[in-house]
């Protein structure tokens, strides 16, 4: 029995160790263009990090089984068409199919090998470039039993592709083993008045990205909900207070003017009384002296 226990614990530790590496593997994506390697082009790596969906639930019991997750190699083909022509094979995607213990299957380590254009195809592509027509590609919607329900089609104006060589960029949106959509186009920009430009080299430089769905951020949960509610309402009330000056300035300015006027008047009044009293006392010389400052007040 002891032996059994030891073995079990050994398997357990192994599985614990191996699981993270498994999960890590899914994050990795090798972009490869072997065809092209023959022609001497440098190897391209995907410029973007690839978000992959982590398994939704990872409880310890499941981790124990993770070493049962199996890998298998699969291949599916890429077809292309020039304008409205029929589709013909253009390359092969190969990937590892990872089967998770909870039943899900995902693709990892996607590689792409592109067939180079034959002379006929080159001619067709040149025609496309001249007529500013569409270059179309398609993928099966299910990689396990192609073509699945239907083919996934994507297209791009042919004039977007040529640069030094023919640059192409695939973003493949996956849901398990199903391909939802493929975004196909040039890796950079394709400015609008599309000018006719023939590629210097008739070879493809391909970038592929595999994308899975992201998790949505959870709604925030607060314990002190009441506080938040108050804040929110306080925010609404505020503008009303701020608009006070904006709303009543036309009353406040005249009010200020009137007050000013009243003060001036009030200051004039006692003086007037004073000047009125002085002549009554029969001292015209003193009145003449005082006239100076009183007029100064008025001028103010």
């Amino acid at each position, binding site marked *: 029995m002891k032996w059994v226990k030891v073995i079990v614990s050994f398997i357990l530790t192994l599985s614990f160790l191996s699981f993270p590496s498994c999960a890590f593997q899914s994050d990795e994506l090798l972009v490869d263009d072997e065809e092209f390697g023959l022609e001497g082009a440098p190897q391209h790596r995907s410029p973007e990090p690839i978000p992959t969906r982590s398994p*939704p639930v990872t409880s310890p019991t499941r981790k124990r089984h993770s070493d049962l997750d199996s890998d298998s190699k699969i291949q599916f083909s890429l077809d292309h068409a020039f304008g*409205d022509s029929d589709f013909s094979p253009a390359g092969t995607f190969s990937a590892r199919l990872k089967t998770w213990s909870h039943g899900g299957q995902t693709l990892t380590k996607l590689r792409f090998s592109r067939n180079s254009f034959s002379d006929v195809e080159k001619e067709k592509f040149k025609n496309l470039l001249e007529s500013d027509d*569409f270059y*179309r590609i398609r993928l099966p*919607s*299910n990689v396990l039993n192609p073509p699945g*329900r*239907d083919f*996934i*089609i*994507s*297209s791009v*104006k042919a004039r977007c592709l040529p640069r030094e060589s023919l640059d192409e960029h695939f*973003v493949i949106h996956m*849901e*398990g083993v*199903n*391909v*939802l*959509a493929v*975004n196909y*186009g*040039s890796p950079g*920009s394709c*400015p*609008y*008045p*599309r000018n006719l430009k023939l590629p210097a080299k008739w070879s493809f430089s391909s970038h592929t990205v595999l994308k899975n*769905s*992201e998790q*949505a*951020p959870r*709604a*925030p*949960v*607060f314990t002190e*909900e009441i506080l*938040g*509610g108050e*804040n*929110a*309402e306080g925010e609404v*009330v505020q503008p*009303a207070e701020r608009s*006070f000056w904006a709303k*009543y300035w*036309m*009353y406040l300015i*005249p*009010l200020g*003017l*009137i*007050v000013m*006027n*009243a003060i001036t*008047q009030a200051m004039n009044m006692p003086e*007037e009384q004073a*000047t009125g009293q002085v002549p009554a006392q029969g001292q015209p010389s003193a009145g003449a002296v005082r*006239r100076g400052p009183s007029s100064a007040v*008025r001028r103010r």
Partner: protein
Amino acid sequence: MAIRSFLILFILFFFSSLNPILSLYEDQVGLVDWHQQYLGKVKQAVFHTHKTGRKRVVVSTEENVVALLDLRQGEIFWRHVLGSNDVIDGIDIALGKYVITLSSGGSILRAWNLPDGQMVWESSLRGPKHSKSLLLVPTNLKIEKDNIVIIFSNGRLNAVSCIDGEVLWEKDFEGESLEVQQVIQPPGSNLIYVVGFASSSLFEMYQINALNGELLKHESAAFSGGFLGEVSPVFSETVVALDSTGLILLTVSFQNGISFQQTPISNLVKDSFGPAKIIPSSVTGIFAIKMNAVTIVIRVTDENKLEVVEKTNHETSISDALPVSEGQQAFALVQRAGPEIHLRVKLAHNWDDNLLKESVKMDQHRGLVHKIYINNYIRTDKSYGFRALIVMEDHSLLLLQQGEIVWSREDGLASIIDVTTSELPVERDGVSVAKVEHNLFEWLKGHMLKLKGTLMLASPQDIAAIQSMRLKNSEKSKMTRDHNGFRKLLIVLTRAGKLFALHTGDGHIVWSYLLQSLQKSKVCQHPIGLNLYKWQVPHHHAMDENPSVLVIGKCGPSSDAPGALSFVDTYTGKELSSLSLVHSVAQVIPLPYTDSTEQRLHLLIDADKHAHLYPKTPEAISIFERELSNIYWYSVEDDNGIIKGHALRGKCTGEVADEVCFDTRELWSIVFPSESEKIIATVTRKLNEVVHTQAKVIADQEVMYKYISRNLLFVATVALKGSGEIGSVTPEESWLVAYLIDTVTGRILHRVTHHGSQGPVHAVFSENWVVYHYFNLKAHRYEMSVIEIYDQSRADNKDVWKLVLGKHNLTSPISLYSRPDVITKSQSYFFTHSVKTIAVTSTTKGITSKQLLIGTIGDQVLALDKRFLDPRRTVNPTQAEKEEGIIPLTDSLPIIPQSYVTHALRVEGLRGIITVPAKLESTTLVFAHGVDLFFTQLAPSRTYDSLTDDFNYALLLITIVALVAAISLTWTLSERKELQENWR
């Protein structure tokens, strides 16, 4: 002293006008908003024939409304909207005080108190299988002093007490293929006959004791010819049916054993027109059949002989029987002939004489008479008089009495399909303008009252008079364009195929037009109205033309049914032209191009994915061909889970050689895995939406550029299991995926999964954001999420010097074939209500901040500031962020009671909310429709560009007067003083 008193007056005024305005005041209700209540097309009406109150009628409608109407004016006493999943099967009045309704496929029986509409009782009826639902309220059938209601539904016959809704007895009819057609209760007896067909050739009759549900007799007889459609009871123990070919009439009598009597229709009428259809009626001894457009009224004599009494080409409606005196029944027939309708009331046993014969002039645009209900009253000379309630083809309801229309209700407006707006004519000489105040005295009186009101000297009566004056302000219902763009025409298309133009000022109907292309005709049996588009909007170089709208309809519900177009002038309400198309209409794309007469180019896509261009003019074709390579469109196949993108290729080839037909080709496709995702919602931006600026300045003087593309599509999918009702799955089995898709290239710009969430999804897309509402199963609450999408490729245009030197890429044309460099921000919030629809406010220039208009489950419209749904809300915003207007993060969205746009009103059966910009930037016009209509003006950031309605002009005037007085006073004072001093 004078100055001091002025001051006091001033301060008083000051404080009286200090109250800040948060929402609507009580006296502002009805100033800019209006509310109209409707019922929908009446499908059953029962007159209240109680001795004391014969002035009411109970109706049930196709919008599932049960209502009590005043027979004198047609006003609604009370009304209940039962909801779309609670279809009314039958109504009746019991005990003279209860309205009985049977609904939800015969499973819910309710009694409402007749005077006030309170529910008295409700009982739910179950049964073994699905069947026809029949409601019967016998007049003199009592079980222990208890009046009963007989209901046949779901394969079970129930007797229910009128008093408390208790089921007294029940009897199942479980025969394998038994289809019960009629339940007959001969008056004055305690028997119930249940008749029906079994296995298509067997006639079954059950006789049941009405007092205890005991089966007394069961008989069945086979008829080799089979049966077709319905049966019509002619006597209490005789029914009429049709054989399976529809050519032979069968009189089935089951008094003493079942006996059939066959009468070929060709024996009755010489020229037979193919298979007939029975129009059921409850009149003793009379029934009607319809063959193509011919209606034949047939009388059954005592020996079960059939006899044609009338044959007519006119559409005829027959009312139910109305007992007049002992053993006598009256019924009415109504027909349309040209501009008049003819109404005849006859006694059931006496066809040759008319009790009443009237002709009533009827508006051509009401169409044919669909239904008639009659009621009798005693005239002043003690003879019988009859009044008739008729339902017209346009779903309107009218009461006829003494050869006149007493009242009419435009109940077609309860079922609006689509809405668009049109400008009113510019005010010019000769353009009709609503009358102004009648005379000088009235005018002076009005202004005196207003002055009194502003000086707060008005008595309560005066205040009431002022309020009614404000509400009846003739300015707002003028038939010309106004400076602020508040007055417009709302053009609405109803399910009946009628166009109405409503004035936004007070909601009155300016004109209405019954579209001929959407009427039942020989070529088109089931026309359906689809959409309304602005066809011609006169602008600078076509000012003299009237604006017009395009109405698109199709013939029948199938996808390849041929389409029909109509062009209607919105000023006059006349049809300019109409077209019946050879191709179907699957999709309509209004293009952003207009021809020299300002007619908008429209592209109609048919079921075979051919594109057809309208108008079919050479000019339009030349404009279109120039832009051919830049036109893309997409199609969503909901049931398949596929979205496809298409482009145009060139002129159609093959058998359809047409100048305006274009071939299309498929560019991209997105295939959702059928087992895990199902499309439940797709939303795009409004085509005419205006965005003021692409840049958004955020807190620390940073700039973010909104990703503004007209070609974005929001798609929501749910797990196949989770597409049912809320709560039908566990959170683990259900998820919701939201996508943002570029419809030109088919790129998925954003994709996010909400685990444990479920539909229904309601979404709204505006500028660079989308807000969607769904149910979170884990939190057991509704949630609203926002996604905002920003363009990163322009993010480095922040440097002022770059902008000055022109080294920026802001003016370069954008091509969607470039790889997009976008980032998204999103956030979810809890929301208390479940939602019927969501809309967003729109203004002319797009400067004013936005509000979401949420149609709640309570049929109200709630305005929620978009700022609450900002993904950048944080728990503790910095000072800079606060200045920007970011609200501290909360987990749920607040519902502020004052922000209900509909204030105290309800828009029953709310289906849609439409927002239209006014010319004034701050204001948007909101129109909500359902069974009711509601219209109002909204200013999401308040009316910052105009003085508000409650602006105190009097105070401003007094201030000016006071200032002038003060200036002149001080001036004279100083003059005098100077004079005095000079004299010294």
